[in-house]
């Protein structure tokens, strides 16, 4: 017999509780307790999902309540998948995802490795490093907008100081080449501490005796790093990558504050585009199909990734 939630709850219910409620079995009582949660899950997760799927086959617009939606089959899906502009949004999102995750992993792990060394002021440095992720994305967006300002921005002046270029000769947010990197830099600045903290937890979970045994075996520091540190931190690192990947796939606020999706559509990530379709153009049916496509993509990629993560954990 499978050990379902209801059965486990029934087993955990004290017998005298069941006896007090006449005519109800332990199993029924367990269901009474579990039912509200299941109902809530159905109401706020499953029902909207099913409704969204249904809407995605129609031309429904939420701002035209007096117009009957028509069933249009797969037309919305066909339109989305053959729209070159949407593929450009996907590319922009992929660029953002890849580089933010790569940089955050690299810098986050390096910082964690350094912070993990015992030195004076260790706690103070940890606090300073994690500060950016405690700020609101809207504040960070506005703050960096000023830093990137070509005439008065500190960022441009720092770059100018090292390169000898005129600070107002380049525009981080206004240039097609630089704008995608400007949002990568800000996200990396903000969220590297998160990756660092997870890596730090991984590093601190490695027992000292493993390193001591390696020392006895005369393993070099580099060998210890690649055969002990990396494999044992890897599940933590992969978890951090999963969290950041999911978060950045739906990135919206920070980029809207910084570039508004521009210049042109250079930094228009899928989430920004989806919001415009759903709540500015009010193409609800079309936006539903768009959301389903994104959901399937994220869900598919996340499932593959979680399987890989479990394999790493099992090793």
């Amino acid at each position, binding site marked *: 017999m499978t050990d379902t939630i209801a059965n486990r709850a029934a087993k955990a219910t004290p017998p005298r509780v069941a006896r007090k409620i006449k005519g109800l079995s332990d199993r029924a009582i367990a269901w009474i307790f579990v039912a509200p949660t299941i109902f809530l899950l159905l109401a706020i997760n499953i029902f909207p999902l099913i409704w969204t799927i249904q809407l995605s086959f129609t*031309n429904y617009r*939420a*701002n*035209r*309540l*007096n117009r009957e939606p028509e069933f249009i089959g797969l037309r919305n899906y066909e339109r989305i998948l053959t729209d070159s*502009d949407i593929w450009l949004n996907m590319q922009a999102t992929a660029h953002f995802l890849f580089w933010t995750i790569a940089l955050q992993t690299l810098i986050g792990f390096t910082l964690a490795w350094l912070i993990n060394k015992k030195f004076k002021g260790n706690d103070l440095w940890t606090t300073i490093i994690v500060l950016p992720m405690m700020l609101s994305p809207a504040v960070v967006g506005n703050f960096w907008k000023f830093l990137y*300002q*070509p*005439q008065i*921005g500190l960022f441009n002046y720092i770059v100018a100081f090292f390169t000898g270029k005129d600070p*107002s*000769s380049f*525009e981080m*947010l*206004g240039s*097609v080449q630089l704008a995608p990197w400007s949002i990568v830099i800000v996200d990396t600045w903000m969220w590297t501490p998160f990756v660092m903290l997870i890596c730090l937890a991984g590093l601190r979970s490695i027992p000292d005796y493993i390193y001591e045994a390696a020392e006895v075996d005369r393993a070099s520091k580099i060998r210890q790093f690649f055969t002990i540190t990396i494999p044992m931190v890897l599940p933590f690192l992969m978890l951090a990558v999963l969290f950041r990947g999911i978060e950045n796939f739906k990135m919206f606020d920070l980029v*809207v504050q910084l*570039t*508004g*999706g*521009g*210049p*042109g*559509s*250079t930094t228009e990530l899928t989430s920004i585009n989806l919001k*415009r379709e759903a*709540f*500015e*153009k*009010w*193409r609800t049916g079309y936006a539903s199909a768009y959301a389903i496509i994104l959901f399937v993509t994220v869900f598919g990629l996340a499932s593959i990734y979680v399987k890989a993560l479990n394999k790493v954990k099992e090793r």
Partner: protein
Amino acid sequence: MKKMTSAAIGAALMTSVSVPTMAMAEDLTLCWAAWDPANALVELSKEFEEQSGHTMNFEFIPWPNFADRMLNELNSGGKLCDLLIGDSQWIGGGAENGHYVKLNDFFDAEGISMDDFAPATVYAYSTWPKGTPNYYALPAMGDANGWFYRKDWFADADIQAAYKEATGEDLREPQSQREMLQIAQFFQGREIDGKTVYGASIFTERGSEGITMGVTSALYPWGFKYENTPGSYDMEGAVNSPEAVEALEFYKEFYETATPPGYTNSYMGESLDAFKSGQVAMAMNWFAFFPGLYADPATGGDKIDFFVNPPQNQAGSTLGGQGISVVAYSDKQDAALEYIKWFADPEVQAKWWELGGYSAHNAVLNDPGFKDSAPFAGDFLEAMNDVQDFWQEPAYAELLLAMQKRIHDYVVADQGTAQEALDKLIEDWTETFEDEGKL
């Protein structure tokens, strides 16, 4: 009995629409954008509160979020606003989706005539379908996109001489779009009072409506049309006409050669900042801001002057401004209609102009002293004679976002050609009108 009840309900409904009563003191909420004229309206409305006994509350939303916030409110049948000063482009959606109360019966009952208001404002802010005598708003705030410049710089003898030497022409208020670009290019990167200044600040904002409002200020003077035949939605050859292509190329050249660095996503606020901080010689913005600019202690007064959007092939200005509507979901429609009746009064309209609002009432505009009542009053009148507005269709937001994307892609992101941008825009708009069942 049933007949009697129906008749009574019918009579009550008729009364509620046609004859505002003053029986109960209500708390009315008026929704608008958060900007200078809104403050003037708060001041003006105190008189209404005294006269009517109603209390006026105001919900002012910053411009970048105004459309999003208010259209969500209307689409969800929200009761936040009893009165809404909504953008001119919303009139189609407001009427067709039943968000606004139709005001014809009320106007007839109260003797409010649309002939008393400037025809361009009635057409743009009140009617749907366009030009028909079906009124969903009273013209509340006339507005157009205009220009202002540093009068003190233009009057400086050294600068004038330098301009003459550089161009062979006198430095003056620009008489054409091309002359305006030439002046802006002259100022670009010039040292004035030890500071580097730039030509002009123009609208380039991507997220809401900025770049569309800016580029149409070039498109209209070149002769841009949305359709070959009004109402037919035949856009090929109109939207992408050679004149439109030339105007779009002009706007891109303006952006690339005569604007301050970093102004890649700028709209009203950024334009005002650029001017007030002494960065630019000229700037575009809505007439609504001109009273505030003139009053500015640093760059206003005798340092500033104003001009109407210069012509090129013809005169043309981008329409701004709004009408005031009664929201159909309001429970206080009687009191809201009372406000409209009060607001339509010529004396109130005159006071509205005095306080900094732009009245569209003929009694104000045709007053012999109007032109001299403010340094920008004459320009405002001139602009309102040649205004053009964006699509006012129920699907206006979709049409606007498509234009925002195509124009920003070309002008700011430097992708493709002007011809391609306008061709793609026709494709987008065609798809929208097909979805709407209009093509």
